[in-house]
């Protein structure tokens, strides 16, 4: 193994040049007596410290004549007594023998541990140079021992500044072995096979002088006009920090198909410049703060459009057709424009569309069983058929077919009269006769009209021709009947009319049946309402039921107090003081002039409360403020069928239930009429309601069957819409 005198790299025996630094091996080196640096044999001064280097011949003589070195040692020993004599008065404790041994031993161990056994830095170089190691060691170790021993003879606090460094005052291993000073301590590279660097190279600054011209991409710098950037600026940052270059982008001016997701022919293709200008050497550098690819290309003829043609306004083309109604188009000369021109669709190139439909058939309302697929003919027609100045033509949903009449309108000069709404959509409003058999006219509206007519007949006919369907009274109805039947003669009954005219057809039969039963029972009736229309509706019901009841006198046996605002607060007020809650009745008569009201006084004075409510909220207000507040109040109700789920929990058969019974919908009215032995509007409407419910059930069933058929036929339609193979 041969060690390089310059980099200490171990080289194979017989090597002539260092594997690491390329220095010639086998030549004799000079060791600086001042810093122990190795120097080429031709040097006269140390390359590290500038100290004069001895000749090789003198070194050889030193090795042969150790007496000269020992003489020098004796000179140093002679100086020590004088130093000790300068501080005789200080009473410093002398170190003990053990302390001195402890101080000496580690030093020697350290010296031996950092160097290979039997070698020192100096001897290693001398060995390489062919000197006798024993002779060199004899010159080096005594100096080392002397240096290590001197501090132990004086206390540390008596440390006197050292005299100017004498030659070879420090051992070699404490000195930097290599001429170029390193920022790292010298002991780091000292290993058995001392490597040049123990840290990765990227931690060291490059040895070559070199500051990078630019550490950031060019486009981040403001370049003066006319100043050309270097072709390949040095990059101090890793490559991945720089923008991608040409290898990932198509070349400049390349024709790119499929732009905007549309396949187009070469003549339709849009050419653009995808390359940054900084990469393009043909373009002179310009002043810019942003990358060049952000700028619209303007100096090259290759770039024609960045956006599709249809996004641009027509320049000097003849008067385009407009698809907005005429009254919105104010392009006539002299008239200001109400809308910007870009809102108007421009038709520049006639598209050969077949005269089938103005709208695609799949946009029409279809029946659930008729999931019509777009025919291939329309698909081909709505696709861009021909290029128009390299324009990607989009299918227009409201594209009208080209008829001669419309063509003449389109051929008018600039400023010609724009077509009216009827003219533009004439083909939509009046479909042509040449309809393709594959696209049938939608018949959904026709079926809807037919279904509506059937529904009207189903509901209307039973009113004139009763079917006589047997109606069995339900338990709720029976309990209402029993409650009214159990009223004492001349009982005070308060009836609340809580519905609007929209539900009058359902609520009126219930109300009439109940009021008629009350009249039969000779009950006194006080009508109230919390709905604005309730007073009028109550009066209509009372007029109908009391038509032949001559014994009923207004104010004594019957009173219509009408509407009272306030909601639940009004109910609570009636519960406390009925006369003062109203003041006047529905007709404006003061309540004090109505004896019946004074007799009732409050809701507590009523023998029964009948609530007729179409909405569940109205009934819940009465239950909350009256029936639940005072257990002594007996209450029955008549509700619409839609309110049944919300009101049924209050009408159980329990004695503690808030409602003693409840009539539900038209059927409840019919049941009550039949319970009284009558057959009136309730019974007749029940037949209509039954047939209407059956009709709706059948509609649901047929709708699901049609839906199921459409799902089963869907794969067939999809296969039929695909063009078959050629030649079959």
């Amino acid at each position: 193994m041969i060690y390089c005198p310059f980099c200490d790299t171990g080289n194979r025996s017989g090597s002539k040049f260092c594997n690491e630094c390329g220095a010639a091996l086998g030549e004799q080196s000079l060791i600086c007596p001042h810093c122990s640096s190795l120097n080429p044999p031709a040097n006269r001064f140390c390359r590290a410290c500038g100290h004069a280097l001895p000749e090789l011949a003198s070194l050889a003589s030193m090795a042969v004549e150790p007496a000269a070195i020992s003489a020098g040692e004796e000179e140093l020993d002679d100086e020590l007594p004088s130093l000790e004599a300068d501080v005789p008065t200080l009473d410093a404790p002398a170190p003990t023998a053990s302390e001195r041994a402890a101080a000496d031993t580690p030093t020697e161990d350290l010296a031996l541990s950092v160097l290979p056994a039997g070698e020192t830095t100096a001897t290693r170089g001398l060995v390489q140079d062919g000197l006798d190691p024993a002779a060199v060691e004899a010159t080096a170790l005594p100096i080392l021992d002397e240096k290590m021993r001197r501090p132990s003879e004086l206390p540390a606090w008596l440390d006197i500044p050292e005299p100017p460094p004498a030659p070879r005052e420090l051992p070699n291993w404490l000195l930097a072995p290599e001429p170029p000073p390193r920022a790292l301590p010298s002991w780091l590279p000292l290993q058995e096979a001392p490597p040049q660097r123990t840290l990765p190279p990227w931690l060291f600054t490059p040895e070559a002088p070199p500051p990078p011209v630019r550490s950031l991409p060019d486009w981040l710098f403001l370049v003066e006009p006319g100043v050309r950037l270097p072709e390949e600026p040095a990059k101090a940052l890793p490559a991945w920090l720089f923008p991608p270059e040409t290898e990932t982008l198509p070349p400049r001016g390349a024709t790119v198909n499929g732009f905007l997701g549309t396949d187009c022919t070469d003549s339709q293709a849009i050419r653009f410049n995808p390359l940054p200008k900084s990469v393009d050497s043909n373009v002179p550098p310009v002043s810019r703060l942003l990358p060049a690819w952000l700028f619209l290309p303007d100096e090259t003829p290759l770039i024609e459009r960045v956006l599709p043609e249809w996004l641009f306004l027509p320049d000097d083309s003849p008067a385009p057709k407009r698809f907005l109604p005429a009254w919105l188009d104010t392009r006539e000369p002299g008239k200001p424009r109400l809308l910007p021109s870009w809102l108007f669709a421009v038709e520049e190139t006639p598209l050969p569309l077949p005269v089938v439909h103005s709208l695609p058939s799949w946009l029409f309302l279809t029946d659930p069983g008729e999931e019509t697929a777009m025919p291939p003919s329309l698909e081909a027609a709505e696709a861009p058929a021909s290029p128009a100045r390299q324009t990607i033509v989009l299918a227009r949903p409201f594209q009208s077919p080209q008829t001669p009449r419309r063509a003449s309108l389109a051929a008018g000069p600039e400023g010609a009269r724009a077509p009216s709404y009827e003219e533009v959509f004439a083909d939509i409003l009046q479909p042509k006769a040449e309809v393709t058999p594959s696209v049938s006219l939608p018949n959904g509206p026709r079926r809807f009209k037919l279904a509506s007519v059937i529904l009207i007949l189903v509901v209307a006919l039973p009113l004139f021709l009763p079917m006589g369907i047997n109606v069995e009274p339900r338990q709720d109805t029976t309990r209402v009947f029993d409650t009214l039947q159990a009223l004492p003669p001349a009982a005070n009954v308060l009836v609340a009319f809580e519905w609007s005219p929209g539900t009058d057809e359902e609520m009126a039969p219930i109300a009439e049946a109940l009021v008629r039963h009350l009249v039969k029972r000779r009950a006194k009736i006080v009508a109230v309402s919390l709905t604005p229309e309730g007073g009028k509706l109550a009066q209509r019901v009372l007029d109908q039921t009391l038509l032949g009841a001559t014994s009923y006198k207004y104010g004594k046996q019957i009173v219509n107090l009408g509407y009272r605002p306030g909601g639940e607060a009004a109910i609570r007020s009636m519960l406390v003081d009925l006369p003062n809650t109203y003041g006047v009745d529905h007709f404006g008569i003061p309540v004090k002039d109505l004896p019946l009201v004074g007799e009732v006084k409050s809701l507590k004075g009523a023998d029964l409360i009948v609530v007729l409510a179409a909405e569940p909220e109205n009934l819940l207000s009465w239950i909350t403020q009256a029936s639940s507040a005072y257990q002594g109040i007996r209450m029955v109700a008549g509700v619409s069928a839609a309110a049944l789920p919300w009101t049924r929990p209050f009408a159980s058969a329990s004695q503690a239930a808030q409602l003693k019974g409840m009539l539900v919908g038209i059927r409840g009215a019919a049941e009550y009429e039949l319970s009284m032995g009558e057959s009136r509007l309730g019974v007749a409407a029940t037949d209509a309601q039954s047939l209407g419910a059956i009709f709706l059930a059948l509609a649901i069933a047929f709708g699901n069957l049609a839906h199921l058929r459409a799902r089963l036929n869907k794969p067939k339609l999809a296969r039929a819409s695909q063009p078959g193979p050629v030649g079959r």
Partner: protein
Amino acid sequence: MKRAVPVAIASGVGIIILLTSFVDGSDVLLSARDLILRWVTILGAFALILGIANVLRVHVRRIIKAEPGWIYSFVLLAVMLFVIVMGVLPGGGGLMNPFVDWTFTYVFLPLNATIFSLLAFFVASAAYRTFRLRSSEATVMVVAGLIVLVGQVPLGGLVPGLSAFSGWLLDTPVMAAVRGILLGVALGTITAGLRLIGGADKQYLE
């Protein structure tokens, strides 16, 4: 002060009404309760006046600006003012005024009933188009709706057991769900009332 007084009034009124439900025999409390209930009725009438004023403001603005459909606003205001004037004229008979009665009986009532009757055709169209068996949940809903729809009419009684099963659906699962909802509403009402009385909820000031 600007917010403290309304909050104090709301809390006091709520406490008084609440106490009258639990305390009997206090004439002062009962008198205060009666007075408050009458005030509420009067305030409800004033709310109607505010509603009329709002309708006037909106539709007068639409007529002045000649917005699309302004003619309908004009008809609305004309009929409304006509009914109000006829109803409040001294000696006009109030609600029994012949013009008011005629307008209600032959204009308002038929039109309102007509609009509601159109619902039958919408339901028929929806029954055909939207009640689809697309999933298991939709199947359950459609089948339950069909059973209740047919079972509640007298004609459904011709199918043995259909009316009974329809009644079971209404009495058991539907009522259970409705009771749960009503109990939740009641608990929410209690909470809202306590928040109002305690002054924690001041949304009525905004």
